């Protein structure tokens, strides 16, 4: 989780990712940020987030994203 927060902070350093729950709905992360995030995650966690998982609910909070990464790791 810490590594994920680190990646998120590289994109927007000024956001408190421990508490934020509306990263997409609150327009903090845009589609460009999401793509950067997905390729960083692919790189560091070796997990591919495909287009079908790219819905706001999966990116609205660091926790939701972390859960998704873990789910995808389990699937693999």
């Amino acid at each position, binding site marked *: 989780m810490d590594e994920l927060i680190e990646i998120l902070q590289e994109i927007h350093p000024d956001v408190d990712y421990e508490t934020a729950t509306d990263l997409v709905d609150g327009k903090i992360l845009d*589609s460009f940020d999401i*793509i950067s995030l997905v*390729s960083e995650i*692919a*790189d560091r966690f070796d997990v*591919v987030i495909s*287009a079908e998982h*790219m819905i706001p609910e999966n990116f609205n909070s660091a926790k939701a994203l972390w859960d998704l990464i873990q789910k995808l790791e389990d699937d693999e």
Partner: protein
Amino acid sequence: MLFTSYAFIGFVILLVALYYVLPKKAKWPLLLLGSYVYYYFAGWKFLFFILAVTVITYVAGILISRNKARADARFAEMKRLEKSGEGDPEKVGKEARKLYKESQKKTRRRIMAIGITLALLILAVVKYTNFTIHNINGLLSAFHVSKRIGFLTILKVTGISFYTFQSVGYVIDVYRDRHEAQKNFFKYALFVSFFPQLVQGPISRYGDLSKELYTPHAFSGRVVGRGLERVIWGYFKKLVIADRILPAVNTMIEAPESYKGVFVFCVMMFYALELYADFTGGIDITIGIAEMLGIPVKENFERPFFSKNIAEYWRRWHITMGTWFTDYIFYPISVSGPMLKLSKWSRKHLPERMGKRVPVYLASFVVWFTTGIWHGASWNFIVWGLGNFVVIMISQELEPLYAKFHKKVNTDGSTVYKSFQVGRTILLMSALRLFDCYRDVPLTFKMFGTMFTTWNWKAVGNGTLLQLGIGRADYVILILGTILLFAVSMAGRSGSVRDKLEKKLPMPARWGLFTVLFLVVVVFGAYGLGYDASQFIYNQF
């Protein structure tokens, strides 16, 4: 049957009345029948096209859904067999299950690909055949080949871009397991053809629209009244503003040699107003009619001209199209295997910032090219789309510079700076839209250039503006109409204007207000309500 015709207004009144009179079971079939009657009047031959797209995407959805259900059942059975020890671990074990799951997914992906390819093929043939022939002829001429391919007579099918995209989105969403496929063919046909949004969107998602579309709504005076309020507001935008300024725009773009310099700037501004009033007015009518039937349709605009930059503008203008492109083109391309490989490579070999952005820019390029060509089969629209791409990329690249500037100059909460940003967005967007106005790309560049080379700014005051097909009275109506438009937009920043009116004004006063607005439309509408003044601009896309 244009939205602005008496026939359409009569049709809507009859349909809404019947909807609330008929028994529950007959409500959605009535909407389907109404939608097909509406489309029949747009052109009876169009029915073949919508039926073809509906059948193709319906079958694809059903096949994907059936495969998923079968695969899930088999997967669960394999798991059970492994647990109980009844099955051969090689055939039902984790690895076997994974392989089975992947193979079934591949099958579904194939069905999806065939379905959307067929649907898009119809769109491509209808929309792009002659454009392709035109370009091939251009190439033949460039290589001094005397042979030419003759153009084909192809029907211009109203609304096909909208319902094809909506149907393709449906198939992809079924594949992505966002919702199940609709088993009832006629219910699905209603989703594709729902008449208020058939010819100019919004491009709805099945998950958003379907439930309320099939729910039988009981009559509510409040709901019908609110829908009607929005419809009247839409007609105000279309007939009082868009259609009134239209002759001036047409006069200037049809005789570019006579209207250079400052008049190009006028085209920019006038056309921005015309398109905004035309498109948002049409969508207000669409959403208002759906609301009268108790069916909420997704908003397509969020005061786009108040955006700080073009990227934000595109999140607030034609929203359903933007999210369609993001979800079904931008994301799949950006996270595809080759793109992720490219991303890895570019981050290793290029400067950090650029390396990270290469895949995003490539995917954006495809999106903007497609957005351009979706709007029309011409180089004008392609260059317009790519123009948007270039501006957005430049502003992305300039971000570190902006950050430096904002560190030095505090602009937080500054109205002047916000106004500058809004003004910049309006100017940039309006300049790009010149491609929508002039006959071809070189002429558009040439006319844009005349703003800086032909210094005829004094012409604004010498009465030429009164010879553009609209007179003094038209300008007065346009100015007052635009002020009202602006005021309503400003009031809408903190929530729905109709909600506010409902809270502040008693019902008779509210009705009085909308009756006045209705009369304004009747009296000051460019050609009077009911006259088939002009097609909505987005009908042609």
